């Protein structure tokens, strides 16, 4: 295992577990598939000797070891499949990113992921469970949802289960979730640190857990900065650009309009940018705008959108990690609910209030 590398100084960055192929790829400046081809020594590939060297050097530097070293052939290990239940694969891009994080980590640990997309349909789930039970190579189940919600788990799962992006009332299983509360806290704090005192907030649909959590984070950040929560600055959107557009027009019509608008997702923030443009306001000179979830497009908006990234790959990784810990090593994680924060991605759509004034002057 990669234990020996843990002490090396260069490895200090990989605090959240072992280095992954993605880390090697980033360091070597090549695609992850190139890394996989080189380190797995696959024949018939056309990788230049130079690239091959770079990859091997990068892997050595951060102490990455190819998982197949302890693969099945050597140990004769038979239990090497993780069943991954998913309600819907096309809900959003994040769903597949999370799945990718799970798959990569599983692969690195010598497991394969068998994905069952069930639409949370009872029959479909029962069929999948029956299939899993026939298959003695399955170590356990990652039960995932496309958006954070409460689920009713199918009965008679006598395998270890880790919930991903969902939770059950009985709290019988470990649940890995994105931390929307601290995420929105950090996003709001970013704007407060820039000197904004009136921060409009266009949230998502209020019936969703994730919207309630986002609102909580926004309010906690305000309270921490000694600001009074003003409900007139908060709007319930529907995650789509059009609601960002509409609510922005409304917020800007206020007699004391906000100097910054924060959105529950990037899509609505795109609507805010458009509304600002139509109102003749410049972003960020006249209005700071902030999204949430760091969609691909957010780098390309005008101006590029400041946002908060979702920890998608890490969510998948942590779920598989927890499942292996429980199912293989008999080790329970510290908490039953593990919430993961994503990093702040400041781009050009937010500016300090002072800078705004300077730009206007």
């Amino acid at each position, binding site marked *: 295992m990669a234990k020996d590398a843990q002490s090396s100084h260069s490895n200090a960055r990989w*605090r*959240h577990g072992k280095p992954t192929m993605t880390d090697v790829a980033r360091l070597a400046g090549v695609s992850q598939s190139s890394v996989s081809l080189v380190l797995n020594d696959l024949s018939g590939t056309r990788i230049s000797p130079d690239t091959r060297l770079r990859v091997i050097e990068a892997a050595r530097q951060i102490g990455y070891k190819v998982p197949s070293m302890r693969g099945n052939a050597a140990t004769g290990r038979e239990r090497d499949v993780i069943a991954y239940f998913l309600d819907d694969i096309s809900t959003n891009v994040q769903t597949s990113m999370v799945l990718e994080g799970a798959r990569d980590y599983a692969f690195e640990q010598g497991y394969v992921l068998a994905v069952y997309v069930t639409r949370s349909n009872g029959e479909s789930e029962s069929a999948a469970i029956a299939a899993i039970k026939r298959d003695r190579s399955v170590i356990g189940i990652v039960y995932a949802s496309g958006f954070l919600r409460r689920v009713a788990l199918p009965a008679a799962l006598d395998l270890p289960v880790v919930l991903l992006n969902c939770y059950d009332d*009985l*709290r*019988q299983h470990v649940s890995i979730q994105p931390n929307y509360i601290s995420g929105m806290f950090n996003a709001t704090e970013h704007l407060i640190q820039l000197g904004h005192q009136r921060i409009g907030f266009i949230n998502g649909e209020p019936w969703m857990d994730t919207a309630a959590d986002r609102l909580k984070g926004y*309010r*906690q950040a*305000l*309270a*921490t900065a*000694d*600001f*009074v*929560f003003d409900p007139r600055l908060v709007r319930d959107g529907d995650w789509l650009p059009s609601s960002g557009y509409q609510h922005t027009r409304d917020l800007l019509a206020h007699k004391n309009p906000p100097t910054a608008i924060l959105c529950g997702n990037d899509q609505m923030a795109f609507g805010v940018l458009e509304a600002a443009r139509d109102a003749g306001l410049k972003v960020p000179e006249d209005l700071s705008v902030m999204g949430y979830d760091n969609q691909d497009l957010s780098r390309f908006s005008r101006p590029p959108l400041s946002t908060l990234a979702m920890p998608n790959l890490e969510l998948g990784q942590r779920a598989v990690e927890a499942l292996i810990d429980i199912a293989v090593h008999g080790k*329970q994680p*510290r*908490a*039953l*609910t*593990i*919430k993961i924060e994503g990093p702040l991605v400041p781009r050009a759509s937010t500016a300090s209030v002072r800078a705004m004034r300077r730009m206007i002057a």
Partner: protein
Amino acid sequence: MSDIANRLGVSQATVSLVLNNAPGTRISKETRARVLAVAEELGYQKTRFPQRNGQVIGMLIDGVTTSKHVASLLEGVRDEAAANGFVVAVIQTMGMPETELAALDYLMARPLAGIIYASLIMRAVKPPERLREIPTVLLNCHAAKEPYSSVIPGDFAGGFAATSLLLEAGHRRIGMMTGETWIEASRERLRGYSEALAAHDIAVDDSLVVSRFSSAIPFARGREGANRLLDLPNPPTAVFCFQDRTAAGAYEAAYSRGLKVPDDLSIVGFDNEDFSASLRPPLTTLTLPHDEMARWAVQRLLEQPDAPNAASNAKRLKIECPVVSRQSVAAPK
């Protein structure tokens, strides 16, 4: 369990005794049967929490006295811990360093997930050095120079919100009765009061702020302070009280003068104590977010940061005190 208790009009303790099949209790067969029937009807499921590696969460608190607030701190910690499979060992230390060390000796000899270091009254604390060895979160107290995460109520914003409520109702002469001056929450709420007035371009009139009283009993202070304010040549039309008990005293002062609340005097309290909804008229007040604070503290404790108690990981959080609007505020005459 509280749903079942409410439905039957029995105490929650009774429900708990029946459902947990506690031995040696004197509950009639009839009550037992009724509890079980309602439990089934409401679909009550006894929650079974997996135990976490035999670890417990230790909670040190200075005292628990008669304040009902401490109950929500203790229960919030207990519930969030239970939801994660932990039990909580609470030790009262009176805030005495020797007792704290003895408590830590006792707790740290056992499998311990971490420590919630709590205070009954919100204040700055100096926790024992030994806590650095173990994940620790400060609850209802704070320590600027220490590496611990902490969570306290947003008292400043609470004072601001309470005063803004009166300003928005149209009041311009607003009195304030503070708590004892050594209490940080009182100073913060007073600061919120002053800033809210400033935001409406109103200068603070010192004669409207009562902070010295002849009694230490909140009810008596409220009566005394309100009488003093109402004796002024130009008395306030509204008063913001540091706590509900002070507000209750202000009610009495108003009524003894034949004044009506809120027609002649609007009153806002703080704490949302049980009795505040039963005053006539029901008191507009603010709630201390002790449950949310306690849960946050436990979640933070269990988040397992890479370096527990590293100053860079410390989060210092305030949670807002929501306004509970009832009927003690009206426009001035």
